[in-house]
């Protein structure tokens, strides 16, 4: 094997793409948290956003998967080796179009993952079709006619699906976004960070100019408290967050919409019935010694003995 010197790839996103901000924030969050990057896996879907892991300017491990399926891969990785930190980067088409089934289903598991949703309102890599977050009646650059689908709201959907940390950031507020990421990366359970990501090439409506003057921070609202501290608060905090998530117009909120750390993670749920899950990482169990199985099959045979 040749001696290798690591170097970053040339990044082929369009100039001015919001993805650059997301990548920056993500790198910074990882570095500021001091995460062991060798234990870090960035899993992505397909789309412009899906290229994220390849474009990291620090060495990490990247798994660039299939359109819509990143969450399923991330789940397999995390559960078989819970010592890894697993982050998902996906597009709005990826996670809320073809992949929305997994997006919803993983909510029921609360696996410890952070899902970063690159919301640009379009299918970037396939040349600008409407994505599921584009509102009805809007006609972005490459649409022949105004969009005839309603949009799905990622924040509402995530809360409805069981995500235990749901936030929104903005690609051009790297500092704020980075802080959201730090919260998500360092907690147990499933987190969603929706990122408003301008696509200057195809989305001429949700541009930097559009967002710059609209976004405001929930943190700055005097009474905003998205955290569920007691089981009884859950319903109320959820519906409050959902109502808030519908705010879209002159003002667009960013920040944490909902957080509930009372729900056990999927890893904890597994360990409840399988104690050894906490002691032996499944992927690291020594199943072989000198070419032979180490597994003891005696009990299992006995059950079937006649």
């Amino acid at each position, binding site marked *: *094997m040749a001696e290798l010197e690591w170097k970053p790839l040339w990044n082929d996103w369009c100039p001015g793409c919001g993805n650059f901000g997301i990548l920056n924030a993500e790198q910074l969050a990882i570095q500021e948290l001091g995460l062991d990057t060798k234990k870090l896996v960035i899993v992505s879907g397909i789309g412009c956003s899906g290229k994220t892991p390849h474009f990291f300017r620090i060495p990490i491990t990247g798994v660039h998967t299939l359109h819509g399926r990143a969450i399923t891969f991330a789940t397999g990785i995390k559960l078989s080796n819970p010592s890894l930190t697993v982050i998902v980067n996906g597009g709005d088409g990826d996670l809320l179009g073809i992949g929305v089934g997994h997006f919803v289903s993983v909510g029921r598991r609360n696996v410890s993952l952070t899902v970063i949703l690159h919301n640009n309102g379009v299918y970037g890599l396939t040349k600008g079709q409407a994505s599921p977050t584009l509102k009805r009646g809007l006609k972005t650059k490459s649409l022949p006619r105004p969009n005839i689908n309603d949009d799905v709201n990622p924040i509402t959907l995530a809360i409805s699906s069981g995500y235990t940390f749901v936030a929104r950031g903005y690609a051009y507020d790297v500092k704020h976004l980075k802080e959201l990421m730090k919260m998500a990366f360092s907690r147990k359970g499933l987190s969603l960070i929706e990122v408003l990501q301008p696509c200057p090439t195809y989305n001429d409506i949700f541009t930097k100019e559009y967002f710059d003057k609209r976004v405001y921070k929930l943190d700055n609202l005097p009474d905003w408290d998205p955290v569920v501290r007691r089981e009884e608060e859950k319903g109320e905090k959820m519906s409050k967050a959902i109502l808030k998530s519908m705010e879209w117009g002159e003002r667009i909120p960013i920040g944490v919409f909902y957080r509930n750390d009372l729900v056990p993670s999927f890893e904890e749920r597994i360990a409840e019935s399988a104690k050894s899950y906490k002691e*032996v990482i499944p992927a690291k169990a020594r199943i072989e010694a000198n070419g032979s199985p180490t597994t*003891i099959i005696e009990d299992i045979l006995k059950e079937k003995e006649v």
Partner: protein
Amino acid sequence: MRISWMIGGAQGSGIDTSANVFGNALASLGFYIYGNREYYSNIKGRHSYFNLTISDVRARSISNKVDILASFDAETVFHHFTDVTRIAIYNTDVVNTSLYNVQSIEPEVAERVGKLLEEKGLEKSVSGALKYMESNGVKLIPVNYDEVTKEVAAKLKVPLSVAERAKNTTAIAVSYALLGLPKENLTRAIERTFKQETFLKLNEIAVETVFSLVRPEFSLPIPGKAKRRIQVDGNTAVAMGKIYGGLEFQSYYPITPASDESTYIEAHQEVWYEDPKTGDKRKRTIVVVQAEDELAAINMATAAALTGARSATATSGPGFSLMAEGLGWAGMNEVPVVVTFYMRGGPSTGLPTRTSQADLKFALNVGHGEFPKIVIASGDHVEAFQDAVLAFNLAEKYQTPVIHLVEKALANAYSIIDVEELGLEKIKIDRGKLITPSDHFYQRFAFTEDGISPRAVLGDAFMYYTGDEHNVLGHISEEPVNRTKMYQKRMKKLETADREIPEEERIKLFGEDSRVAVITWGSPKGAVLDAIDELERRGGLKVQVIQLRIFSPFPSRLLKKLLEDKEVIIDVEGNYEGQAGEIVKEKTGIEPTHYVLKWNGRPMARDEVEEGLLKALNGERRVVLNGGA
């Protein structure tokens, strides 16, 4: 000695448990059994049955003709009366039940049976069917189940509705008593099965009552047991093999007839192993995830394999179709993931609870684009166990998806086998070029002579994976020369596998070289071998049976050599197209001369295969079997 027994009844009425008790009792006497479970895609009410062969030597197939039919409802009689050869146990209460009063019977069955009875001038009722059997020399054993129930109720002082539950046991006890076997073994089997006291008593009393009424019709020498034996179905055999082979992650989405495998593993999620470092006995967890669909299932398993876990999923046709894209990613990224593919009747939802061998070419060609797949097809329960380990070994050795084909006919068939047949000591674990790189940076897809790159796992080094074409680092690359090479590297692994896996392991031969060959694969194996034995015994005919066990890489050279001088090549398989035959032709240029095919969803039985082979030998180019109810 070989006796074929069958019990039938409505789905959900406890047929399986009874058949199990019956089998256990026989097993404890040293008999071998081979049994098949047939049922509708229904939870309660449709007709189900269990077809068992009892033998003093290792049994490996069922027979369509049944020596003893145990029934307590009318529908069972209607479904099976034409197949009974010696004894029919029936319920005196249903004698007058008309064919058209059995609501749960399918109209097509009613029509067919009605026509037959009419042709014979018989009444379209159970009594007509009984007369039909009688005229065929079948001995009828009437059982007044109601009376037995009443007696049980009275003795145990329970309501009739509770005592009703002993009906199944009554049916098997009658069968068992007819066989003239010692009561204790049946009683013990009952004790092992029913833990709840009332039920236990109930069944015991039923046995007592039956034994006081029934006289033996057989007198079987009791073989006794020399070796340690287990009784397993195909689902469990695979699950056990996977566990022994080091399974660490299994994802699945419920589907018949695959999910019982995952349920079994789930119930055994913690397994003991000997820590090779310390020598200690420790427990480890197999992560079993019920995914939201099969797309998720395959991808979760693939991803788990990236972390170094021995990882698998299990599904059947509809689920496998949904895995096509995921398998391509695994192939492109050289991931050792195993898919146990339980074939059931297709296309589409098809016959969800019936068997089939029609997915072979799909499995071999699944997914867009070209990538190496290894495809193994198990022919019996022992192979199902061993192939589960082999699948992992080949997956890791050649870093590519392995598809392990098992049919519903094996999954839901029960076989008693000697533990030594499993060859536990000879079973090896080969993890291939699994490494822990010393450097942080690492070329996951380094070019090598044999196409196989050293494999490190997530968390042990920095690395990249992508479903796009990539360079040695795993970064996207569209450059044409790298494309040609990287593609070739992947495909070369199959050529390496073809060189390294002995062709003798990919083909199993039975019988001497002869001018007649029978090609088969998968579950028909047992029936074919039994049929050939019978033919040889009767006619002195010599036949060589060629079982295809690994379809990819295909053992072309050996097979060509074997087939070259054959005069007659009969392909026996469970589909319409003769898919294995087509592959044989593609790979060797030699085409089977005859086909014995079946696609009605029922497993091949030894008697119909025997008949089918005879027809083929008499010149019928394409024999279609249609046995089973």
